[in-house]
């Protein structure tokens, strides 16, 4: 691709300069085995309503929770987005929400249960409360924990056994990951967002392109992004297989954090700032891999297939497998097209959608809702459209700005916060079999949004454009409609 290059460099040059991940790693290493695995201290551990099996393991093995004060719980995966817990119509799922509360309470862990003013998607709540801080090692039993790397924390998802290990010991055994820097030159064009950028990057390096590596995003295009945009980029690092995504903290980070409820204050804030300013890769640090991307060349990007790597500019057409020389890749494309019920050569902007989902830990923050509302203001949705704020505090902020009235006036549903239709776990927020959904979430895997559901990933503005046109559309082509007073 024009303006993009990739170079491979040999590792082992760390002695000359340290990368950001090296610095965080070294500050948290309790001990290292001769085999190379390190025992890392964990600053912050988030749990949610899908963590019950880890508590089961603790109980079976007879362990307690070492540092309840470093552990924070919030209900997100199973919560209903309207009508209360009974609306789930399934006591087993409602009980997942309640089990978080019971497990947290018996170990003295602070938790934001269903209905709490601080409740929301764990990856939205952590940053907005200042629970996520630069330089932290932060883990959670959820793969999108990579989100928190946007604040300069080494943040990654783990499974239930490792959640139990962190609960019991406040540590985790880890092999040192490789380092990969994605240098983003230039600036995003008008109407092109952080979501388009990360979809473009994943399409370029592949769904397994960063496996075993921590990606550090750097360069002018990253520095120019808002904190919320950075959270979106780091969120989807896992969709390229990365262990974590990471952005060096800067003034944008500090402005975002200052005054947040759990952020340090006064003298401690000043001391923290001084320390955080040193959290950047040394000039002479050598990365195991370097990728260069020209942000100015990124277009609004949409997925056509069943892996986040299967994405193209909205101005392009559905790819044709017959043009793919590699037999295995050709077979995968054909399989994806069959599942998605798409014909090669169809312009992306002519694909009809059946519904729209705006929300998730990728795009459920206030800036995302503003972007969607900007397009929906004064227009009507042509297909069922659900807007789910990422947290109660995002919901409150949106309502204070009147965004809820914009959504409702456009015919969209304004819901309560939760993971909702991104993960289709609460049993009611589902895309029906065969339905095609324009979604601001992070995974277009077969069945992700419901059995037989067909997902096209895109930005909030693009999802809103799909809602008002009934098909995938280039949001840049839709001028703001005449205001109707809200």
């Amino acid at each position, binding site marked *: 691709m024009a303006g993009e290059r990739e170079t491979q460099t040999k590792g082992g040059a760390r002695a000359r300069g340290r990368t950001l991940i090296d610095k965080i790693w070294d500050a948290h290493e309790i001990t290292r085995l001769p085999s190379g695995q390190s*025992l890392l201290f964990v600053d912050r551990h988030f749990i949610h309503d899908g963590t019950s099996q880890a508590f089961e393991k603790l109980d079976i*093995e007879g362990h307690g929770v070492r540092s309840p004060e470093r552990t924070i719980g919030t209900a997100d995966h199973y919560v209903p987005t309207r009508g209360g817990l009974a609306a789930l119509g399934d006591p087993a799922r409602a*009980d997942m929400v309640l089990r978080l509360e019971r497990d947290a309470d018996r170990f003295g862990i602070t938790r934001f249960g269903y209905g709490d003013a601080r409740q929301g998607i764990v990856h939205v709540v952590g940053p907005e409360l200042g629970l996520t801080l630069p330089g932290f090692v932060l883990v959670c039993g959820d793969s999108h924990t990579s989100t928190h790397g946007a604040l300069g924390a080494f943040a990654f998802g*783990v*499974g239930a056994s490792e959640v139990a290990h962190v609960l019991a010991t406040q540590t985790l055994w880890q092999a040192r990951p490789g380092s990969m820097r994605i240098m983003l030159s230039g600036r995003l064009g008008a109407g092109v967002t952080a979501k388009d950028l990360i979809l473009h990057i994943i399409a370029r390096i592949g769904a397994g392109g960063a496996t075993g590596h921590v990606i550090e995003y750097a360069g002018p295009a990253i520095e120019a992004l808002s904190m919320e945009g950075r959270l979106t980029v780091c969120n989807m690092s896992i969709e390229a297989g990365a262990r974590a995504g990471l952005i060096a903290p800067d003034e944008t980070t500090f402005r975002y954090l200052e005054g947040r409820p759990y952020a340090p204050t006064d003298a401690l804030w000043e001391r*923290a700032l001084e320390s955080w300013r040193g959290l950047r890769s040394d000039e002479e640090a050598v990365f195991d891999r370097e990728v260069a991307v020209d942000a100015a060349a990124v277009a609004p990007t949409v997925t056509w297939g069943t*892996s986040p790597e299967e994405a193209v500019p909205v101005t392009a057409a559905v790819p044709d497998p017959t043009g793919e020389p590699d037999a295995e890749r050709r077979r995968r494309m054909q399989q994806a097209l069959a599942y998605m019920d798409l014909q090669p050569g169809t312009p992306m902007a002519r694909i009809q959608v059946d519904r729209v989902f705006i929300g998730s830990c990728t795009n459920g923050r206030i800036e995302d809702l503003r972007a969607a509302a900007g397009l929906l203001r004064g227009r009507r949705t042509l297909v069922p459209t659900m807007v789910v704020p990422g947290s109660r505090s995002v919901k409150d902020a949106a309502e204070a700005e009147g965004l809820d009235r914009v959504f409702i006036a456009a015919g969209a549903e304004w819901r309560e916060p939760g993971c909702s239709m991104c993960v289709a776990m609460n049993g009611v927020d589902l895309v029906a079999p065969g339905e095609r959904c324009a979604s601001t979430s992070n995974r277009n895997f077969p069945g992700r949004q419901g*059995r037989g559901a067909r997902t096209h990933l895109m930005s909030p503005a693009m999802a809103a454009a799909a809602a008002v046109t009934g098909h995938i559309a280039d949001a840049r082509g839709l001028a703001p409609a005449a205001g109707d007073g809200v």
Partner: protein
Amino acid sequence: MEPVTRLSGLALAFPFGNVDTDQIVPARFLYRRRREGFADTLFHDLRADPAGEPLADFPLNRPEAEAATILVALDNFGCGSSREHAVWALVDAGFRCVIAVSFGDIFRNNAIENGLLPVALPAEAVGRILELLQGAPGQSLHVDLPEQYVRLPDGSRFAFEIDPAAKENLLLGRGRIAATLTLSCEIDRFEQAYRKQVPWSQ
């Protein structure tokens, strides 16, 4: 958790790449308790049509699948969601080992925690094994963890790499919590010093 040492077992060709954990266990089954088991959820939506009719051409519906203990897949196996249920479903269905070109990082860690041996082999080696299994289904492979190789029925071998700590845990069949707790004094000492350096971490 059963130790993993040397496995000789029937291998099942699963010639797909980017197999995500949503495919391995759909989200709607995740709320079960561990002891309830997840074998019936393994590849649930790929194995049968929505009416529950098994899809004959799906690998897990082949006659040899019932007795299979080794699954052979392509690249990026277990990518996506961190759900450990994906590993539990494979283990509960009798699998002891997955051979693939590469694995999702979280899946690989989850596998090791549950005595499921993840073996990464180069694409050419996996291609050859798949060719063999697809040509004559129902063949066995020998996977040797102590010596780190996979042996095919014709005697040819492919060596594999594995993290030494992961290997030790698999060989001993142990989870890590109890072992880490023996380091409690070291962890406490570290935290005390760390708090002085980073007092805003609490």
